């Protein structure tokens, strides 16, 4: 193999020295009779440079390796999260379509019945009334799901307008009144007037409805659900209390997680979307407030408390 050597035959020391000086300028070579001088400083400098270069490369190498690892790690994590989200999305979609099928099923039954049978007027009227309720329910469900989707993507713009809390809370409770009555639940509402806060009304409705739905879902038919709104200092406090299955006290943070649900596999997989409480927390947070859950244990009911900063209404 041909090596590339620069060769200089040593015949003339002077020539040789000047050639050396040319070849290695950093060394500061000087000529002296019978010898070659190298500046000590220069030699040291050169050596330092060489070792510095090695260090630099080593550090750069390490640095870039770390960067690469971090990059890969980040990608893996993102992909993992994406896949998790995808799975949850699929679960969300499945649960969603299941929720929608219920009012559609009763609507279909009623349409078939009205079309196929002649009924006394009173019964016809009852069926039509039920159908109207189902349509409202369907519409409401879709609105809530869209809102949920919006909130999942981000908290959105901050609330700027001031609303009457009792009025908005009442609206939300009223829209659930017939659903609750069907299950023979008793809703006790006690809403203090004159409380105002900066909220988005539709999101507040969603928060209240989700809390009430949650209470209903985990309570036996015929039981009582309490809805209270009170002033506490410069905060408004909303409480939803139920006599249902409660939860283990150590779970009181986890129940607000996305897709967390208590219950058997079948109930978990299809009753609701698993986002109810998660959205309650997101919405409360978006309005500058917070929510807490409390239960004395399974079978001992539950209490959910939402606190919101109040705004003094400018008359």
């Amino acid at each position, binding site marked *: 193999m041909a090596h590339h050597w620069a060769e200089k035959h040593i015949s003339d020391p002077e020539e040789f020295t000047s050639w050396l000086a040319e070849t290695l300028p950093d060394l500061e070579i000087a000529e002296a009779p019978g010898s070659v001088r190298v500046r000590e400083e220069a030699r040291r400098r050169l050596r330092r440079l060489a070792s510095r270069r090695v260090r630099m490369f080593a550090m750069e190498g390490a640095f870039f390796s770390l960067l690469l690892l971090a990059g890969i790690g980040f990608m893996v994590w993102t992909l993992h999260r994406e896949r998790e989200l995808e799975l949850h999305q699929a679960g969300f979609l499945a649960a969603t379509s299941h929720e929608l099928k219920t009012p559609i*099923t009763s609507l279909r039954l009623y349409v078939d019945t009205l079309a196929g049978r002649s009924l006394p007027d009173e019964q016809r009227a009852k069926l039509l009334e039920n159908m109207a309720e189902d349509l409202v329910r369907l519409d409401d469900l879709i609105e809530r799901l869209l809102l949920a989707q919006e909130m999942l993507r981000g908290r959105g713009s901050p609330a700027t307008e001031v609303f009457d809390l009792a009025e908005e809370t009442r609206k939300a409770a009223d829209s659930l009144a017939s659903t609750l009555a069907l299950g023979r639940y008793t809703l006790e509402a006690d809403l203090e007037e004159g409380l105002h806060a900066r909220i988005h009304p539709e999101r507040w409705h969603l928060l209240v409805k989700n809390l009430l739905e949650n209470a209903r879902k985990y309570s036996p038919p015929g039981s009582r659900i309490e809805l209270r709104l009170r002033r506490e200092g410069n905060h408004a406090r909303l409480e939803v209390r139920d006599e249902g299955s409660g939860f283990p006290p150590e779970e009181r943070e986890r129940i607000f997680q996305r897709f967390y649900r208590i219950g058997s596999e079948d109930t978990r997989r299809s009753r609701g979307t698993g986002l109810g409480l998660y959205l309650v927390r997101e919405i409360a947070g978006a309005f500058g407030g917070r929510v807490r859950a409390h239960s004395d244990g399974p079978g001992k009911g539950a209490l959910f408390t939402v606190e919101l900063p109040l705004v003094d209404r400018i008359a």
Partner: protein
Amino acid sequence: MAERILIVEDEEHIAHGLKLNLEAEGFMTAIAREGNEAIEAILEDEPDLVLLDVMLPGASGFEVCDRVRAAGSRVPILFLTARTAEDDRVRGLQLGGDDYLTKPFSVREVITRIRAMLRRQRWYLRSPAAGEVVAFGPNRVDFRRYTAETRHGTVTLTQKECMLLKLLIEHEGEVVDRDTILDRVWGYDRYPSPRTIDNLVLRLRRHFEEDPRRPEFLQTVYGVGYRFRGSVD
């Protein structure tokens, strides 16, 4: 006498719609709104058929079916499910349900299915000429209890196994063709795969034959169907 149907459904409007239509068709109805309530109603009141929603508070529909079957109830069960996933449907049938309907369903579909199921149940409950216990070879089959004494000991038979066996025994000596088997034992217009009958026969042979590959009692008539021979020639 009017047949009694138990509607197990927690959604009020659906329960109401079903009740209205079933009563208009001459059935008597009762409603259970929760899993444990349903189990009690089935075991104590012994309805003639159960419409069972899968999504229930308390125990799920699958659990209800599992527990009443374990307790010995053979009441025909028609699952109502919003889930169309194949696994869920198969699971219901494996747990001992007889049929399923996916939501939303039409009134006509419900009524037709119910009538078909009741018809099959009535046929099954009519005792064969020989009585409710049939003996062949070392085997004794109790069609009421769905059990059999065999050379391998006592075995529990599934609903389908009993229905097929009964059908073949009722036609002892004659060939029963596959269409008749499908109609009598499955009865709806969605037929299982062709292998399903074969697998069922294979299971029966494993219980009752000394050598399942050379059956004495449950014979194959190739290209046509199956035949039961009660005594060995």
